[in-house]
């Protein structure tokens, strides 16, 4: 499988109350037809990564270094016009909050048709039919009637499915879903995840799913990126990650999740402390001050060390010369 998207050394900087490098030279790639999950705590830069790929960073932020190669072409070198030919057709995104992501003053149909016609030469009628079939495809009942409705009349789950329909309008190569179900109930979440999986299987597109939910990762991902404080701290194939987490943060993350099957005596391991807010100033390992295994050498910058086959971790414990092993 060829790399559909390759992100190299991506650095994103924000200016504002405090000038801040919020993404610190991130590199990763997504293969054709792959389902990639990005996990990490709030504020670690997951959304920023996806927005940078889409070229939709907020006005006070910008990419200050790196390359984003989509099908081998650097999106960063694209003009806004050129980007628009890719955005919405080959490269699409679903946002976290479906409630606010649909324009409240246009009908569902209007917004869907707009997506379709932005990248194809369909006339209005064809586009309408295509839109209806898309709504059907995402499992929404009575698509004809739905076309004429306004977003506020729809429930959260329905809106999120409309968003998906919109994203799929032009058969994208890559779909980025940024926490598409965080605001929804588990039952609805399950519906939407199944839908995503089904659509991916059918069309062979690649998906980047950003989430907090370890359970979702386990169920959906082919490969997982773990982010912490603006960096990728671990990257691995999903089974490898769950069975052999290399980074202490990943290990803790997997331990902190309570399940309904827990025995009553189980005590959750909690990671003490919080994610440092001004993490760009930390030169060494950014997890060090919460890490039970932290040592002096953690103060030096850490590269990603190989921790197995296609498995990388940014932890000195994985450094070859140290040879140290996580003893927990």
């Amino acid at each position, binding site marked *: 499988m060829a790399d559909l998207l390759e992100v190299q050394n991506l650095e994103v900087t924000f*200016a*504002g*109350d405090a000038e801040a490098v919020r993404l610190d030279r991130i590199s990763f790639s997504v293969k054709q037809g792959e389902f990639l999950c990005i996990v990490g705590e709030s504020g670690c830069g997951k959304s920023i990564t996806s927005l940078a790929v889409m070229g939709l960073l907020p006005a006070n932020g910008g990419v*200050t270094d790196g390359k984003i190669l989509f099908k081998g072409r650097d999106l960063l070198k694209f003009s806004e016009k050129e980007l628009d030919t890719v955005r919405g057709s080959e490269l699409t995104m679903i946002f976290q909050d479906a409630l606010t992501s649909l324009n409240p003053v246009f009908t569902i149909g209007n917004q869907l048709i707009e997506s379709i016609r932005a990248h194809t030469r369909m006339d209005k009628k064809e586009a309408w039919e295509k839109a209806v079939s898309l709504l059907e495809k995402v499992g929404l009942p009575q698509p004809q009637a739905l076309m004429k409705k306004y977003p506020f009349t729809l429930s959260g789950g329905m809106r999120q499915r409309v968003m998906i329909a919109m994203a799929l309008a032009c058969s994208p190569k890559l779909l980025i879903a940024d926490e598409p179900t965080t605001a929804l109930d588990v039952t609805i979440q399950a519906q939407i995840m199944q839908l995503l999986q089904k659509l991916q299987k059918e069309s062979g597109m690649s998906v980047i799913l950003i989430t907090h939910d370890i359970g979702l990762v386990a169920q959906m991902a082919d490969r997982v990126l773990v982010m912490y404080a603006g960096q990728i701290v671990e990257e691995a194939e999903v089974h490898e990650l769950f069975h052999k987490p290399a980074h202490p943060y990943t290990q803790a993350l997997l331990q902190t999740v309570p399940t309904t099957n827990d025995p009553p005596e189980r*005590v959750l391991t909690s990671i003490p402390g919080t994610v*440092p807010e001004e993490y760009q100033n930390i030169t060494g390992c950014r997890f060090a001050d*919460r890490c039970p295994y932290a040592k002096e050498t953690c103060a030096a910058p850490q590269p990603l060390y190989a921790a197995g086959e296609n498995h990388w971790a940014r932890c000195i414990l994985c450094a070859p010369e140290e040879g140290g092993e996580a003893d927990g």
Partner: protein
Amino acid sequence: MPPQTHLFSTSKEGRTVEKQKTKSAAGESYSRLMWKRFCQHRVAVVSLAVVALLTAAAVLAPLIAPYSPEAMVGKFSAAPTGQFLLGTDQIGRDVFSRMLYAMRVSLLVGAMATVISTAIGVILGLISGYFGGAVDMVIMRFTDMVMSFPYILLVLVAAAIFKPGMWNIIWILGLVDWPGVARLVRGSTLSLRETNFVKSSIVAGMPRRHILFSEILPNTVAPILVYATSVLALSMLDEAALSFLGMGVQPPDASLGNMLNGAQSLTVLTSKPWLWVPPGVMIIVLVTAINFVGDALRDAVDPTAAGGGHFALKKKKALRKAES
């Protein structure tokens, strides 16, 4: 109840908290943050400086002014000379001295009218928003009424009831301008009423006055402050308008409005610019500067407004350059 032991390692907690402390010591308190954001608007900073300077000049007028504002010290309507920096007015008073005192009056009128309208608006808005229901209905309908009154009628009636003069104007403007504040405060109160900290105060059984004045009010201060700047600026203009209608500050006291109004003839306009340019420029400068300050204040107060973009863009460009 003895102090409890914990499941967390205190030493690690302590470390995080140390960091927190240094962060707050670095100047992240709300007001500091606001000030920092405010400072990113250069025009606003300059405006603030101008307002401060002019206010200082107005306050210190008795010390700065070369002549008494009411004394007829020179020839009538004489052009500026070394002795009278901005000339003399129609009855030989020093325009410069009068202007200083006029600023004093105009700023006082603006400030006091703002204080009055804000006080009324805040109280009515708080009550209306917090209690809702019939109280809210009555207050809001009353607000509607005041808003649709012919302004001039109010002014004239007030002029007939009270002695004409500066305080009269202050009261009139104060009593006319409050509906905006009331609506603003009501709006904030409506949403603050639903916040969890107000609810938790209720759950904690705190009395109503505590909730209104100690929980809700402090949180409306910022928007009120922003609004107040525009009321301040508008009041100064309104005073000028009232002067035009002959209901302004009483002579021989000078206000920027009545000085300008005194120049209401084409002859003065064309051949005695020293009579209108100083008060005219001053009123425009003051009002514009106050507006700029208010605008920047809004950006600084409102966390959603992207702070200091101008500055940011420059930095970003610099960063780009450094990279390549």
